């Protein structure tokens, strides 16, 4: 055999990184600084004659079909490579439903015959892009805001926080405020709501939010006439523009607002890591791009930490923020691309033959995977 043939045999095909978000999917190659495509997580369904979202499923079979169609779109329309015998880095949330993970594994291994899959959780991948030993990842996506402490490359699982405070909450509030502005029920599509949010909305500062709530109302920002196809233009008032993201910061007795869950996450972490966590915050996710959101979060944190119940339980006073090393919506993807490229031998990948034999994935929530070796029940689990 000629030398170059040997090299070609050893040479690994460049792996792909898949971040299948609720709204947008990021897909590209390891070792590259940006995904090749960021597209909506939906595909054209010819039998139903409409765009179908990957996350809309009622049965496991439907989810399987959705994933097959979505991956087909990604591989053959956007990235243009053969999925076969190529490794995949899957960027996932720690709270991904088991059914979703297992179905995705089935689709990747049996339908697309990929050679191995690295399952990587997004908080650790985000931490990877910072290079700091301790970091607090606040990721605000489409459905949920997740706050996760990453200490020396491991996630403090018991401090993991998640609340439905993300793009959906903003969209619902925006739709409500727009109805108020125009005195009718507009029933705008999700896409238009998103477009209005992207083009006009921002997060006002703390003082102004206080004024809006308790009065007297501050001078609102300029209102905007938003044109609609085939309908009269609608008014987006300055109040609406400013207050659409307010549900993220709304406090009630449950202490479940975005700044609250950040502080609670820190509070549940080991005492010697808390200071480092508060000084290494990374706010990421597509919703974090909203102008003013990061500043507002910083202000809220600095204020809330002086208030009970935090003031007597947390003695941190300083909050420092990292600038993400890439666009906010691709930080986790980028971490996957870096991690996947560094670990070129893919020692952390689950190979296809192992999956075919065991038919299961490692999961932090499963006793089989999280029982330490010296634990008295370990023997029974290993049987």
């Amino acid at each position, binding site marked *: 055999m000629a030398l170059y043939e040997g090299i070609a045999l050893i040479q690994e095909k460049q792996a792909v990184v898949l971040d299948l978000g609720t709204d947008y999917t990021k897909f590209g190659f390891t070792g590259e600084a*940006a995904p090749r*495509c960021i597209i909506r997580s939906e595909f054209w369904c010819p039998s139903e004659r409409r765009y179908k979202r990957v996350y809309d499923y009622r049965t496991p079979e439907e989810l399987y079909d959705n994933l097959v169609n979505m991956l087909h779109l990604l591989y053959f329309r*956007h990235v243009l490579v053969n999925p076969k015998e190529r490794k995949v880095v899957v960027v996932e949330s720690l709270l991904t439903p088991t059914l979703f993970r297992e179905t995705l594994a089935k689709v990747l291994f049996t339908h697309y015959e990929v050679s191995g899959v690295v399952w990587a959780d997004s908080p650790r991948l985000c931490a990877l*892009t910072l290079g700091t030993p301790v970091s607090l990842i606040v990721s605000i996506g489409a459905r949920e805001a997740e706050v996760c402490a990453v200490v020396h490359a491991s996630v403090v699982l018991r401090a993991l926080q998640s609340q439905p405070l993300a793009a959906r909450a903003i969209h619902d509030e925006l739709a409500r405020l727009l109805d108020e502005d125009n005195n009718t029920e507009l029933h705008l599509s999700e896409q238009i709501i998103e*477009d209005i949010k992207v083009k006009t909305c921002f997060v006002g*500062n703390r003082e102004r939010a206080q004024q809006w709530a308790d009065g007297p109302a501050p001078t609102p920002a300029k209102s905007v006439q938003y044109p609609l196809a085939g309908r009269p233009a609608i008014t987006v008032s300055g109040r609406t523009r400013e207050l659409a993201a307010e549900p993220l910061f709304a406090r009630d007795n449950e202490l479940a607002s975005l700044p609250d869950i950040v502080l609670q996450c820190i509070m549940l972490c080991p005492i010697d890591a808390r200071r480092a966590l508060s000084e290494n915050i990374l706010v990421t996710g597509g919703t974090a791009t909203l*102008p003013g959101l990061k500043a507002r979060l910083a202000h809220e944190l600095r204020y809330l930490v002086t208030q009970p119940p935090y003031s007597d339980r947390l003695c941190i006073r300083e909050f420092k923020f990292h600038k993400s090393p890439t666009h906010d919506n691709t930080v986790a993807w980028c971490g996957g691309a870096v991690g996947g490229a560094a670990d070129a*031998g893919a020692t952390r990948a689950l190979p296809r033959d192992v999956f075919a034999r065991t038919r299961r994935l490692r999961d932090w929530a499963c006793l089989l995977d999280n029982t330490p070796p010296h634990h008295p029940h370990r023997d029974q689990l290993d049987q």
Partner: protein
Amino acid sequence: MAYLTQPDYVKYVCSCGQLKPITSLYFCRHCLKIRCGFCICHEVDSHHCANCLENMPSSEARLKKNRCSSCFDCPSCFHTLSTRATMAAQRQAQDPAGGDAKVENKQTKKMYYLSCFNCRWTSRDVGIPDQSVASGGWPERTNPFLSRYNQLLDYYKAIAQQEKQEKLERERKKFAIRGKYITLTDKTGLTGAMARNIAGLPTSESGSSAAIASFTPSQASAEVDELPDDVYTKDVNLKQITSMSQRLASPEWQPSSVSRLHPLAKLLSIKRSQRCRVCDHNLTKPEYNPGSIKFKIELLAYYHVPEVKIISYETVKPGEKSALLLKLTNPTGHEMQIQLMQPEDLPPVEEREEPKSIEKSLEKSLNLEKDTSSYRAIERVAELGSSSRVTAPEATLTLAQRDDAAEYDDDAQQDTSDFILWRKSNKLALRLEVTTDAAATPGAPARAALALQYSYRNTVPPAPAAPQQAHHTLYTTLLLDLGVVSG
């Protein structure tokens, strides 16, 4: 054409259980089974640009990140951009004194810019200088985050390298067999690194440790990007702000302002070849030439499986009988025997499979059972959900082979049979009766399932070792859409 636009009234059950119209089905001549896009294996065959129809070898496509180097898409509306030429006067003001010289120096030169005929966006809108050559040469932008990304990449590669080395070292220490011969390094207490140092060689891991040492982790700061001061007073110009799709069309830059839009190099298209998962034979293989829409291999069900069309039907009512007119077509070049059956009367799949020779099964078990395991996982039972049944006549129908010349024959032959309406070369019209379940709810979609048994003549030259039979009896199930159950 009607196939492309109309809803699918007749759906076939693929061997994997999916319901598809005959136009999106394949027929594997080696397995003698219907396959569909869901249960076959797709492969990238060749890359080309759909605009300039230029072929690009895969290696080059990989280098160019699957982008055409001469075609661009509009960053505003994603339509293809056109190159436009203007005559630009080139001022050469080196000799302002002489009047004659001035005339001579005033050369006109053709300059090019990109323009969108759909939304009128031009490369001049965003300040991209005109180019002197028509194709290419457009300024390329680099990812603003690239340098930091590369630092991260070097750092983690070095760490991975070090981890690997440490692991090797540990392994070596664990399993090193202490022989009776003491190596030089053992005797003198030198480590490998020290020996290299003395010899003046670069230390083996210097590269990785240097990369690790020089890496600076991200620095957090107390300052956060505040809102611009004018946000409460400035008017919003919606035309100046990009939409989500405009931002995401260039993942590297994601411009939020229209003035930062840049032409998008056109994404290449691919031609796919498709393979049967069970026997690994090609089902379709396109011609290499991007302009050609022909295939080298094209095993479509449309050419091999009898086609069923609904001519007309009576409204379906619960508990009643209604008439149904069907047209059957034999697309093959051989005479075909067809018998209508009930889906539940079909022999089970296992029985239908031809007994495999010992060599074949041995080959399969050696083949790491790859083919079946992946196919079995995809297979599922079709949900027919039919509320009506078609009364199938016992008789076997014979359909002549396809004869293109007979297309011009006008007169249909009248058949004597009571359920055959007419017969014309390879086509046959049937009058059938549909019995609907009395429990069918009015307003629900009315579907009738029907099974076909048909004879098929295999034209694949048999393999020299295993003499194959050429005549087969095959089965297929189909689902007819008869509108809605009336009240």
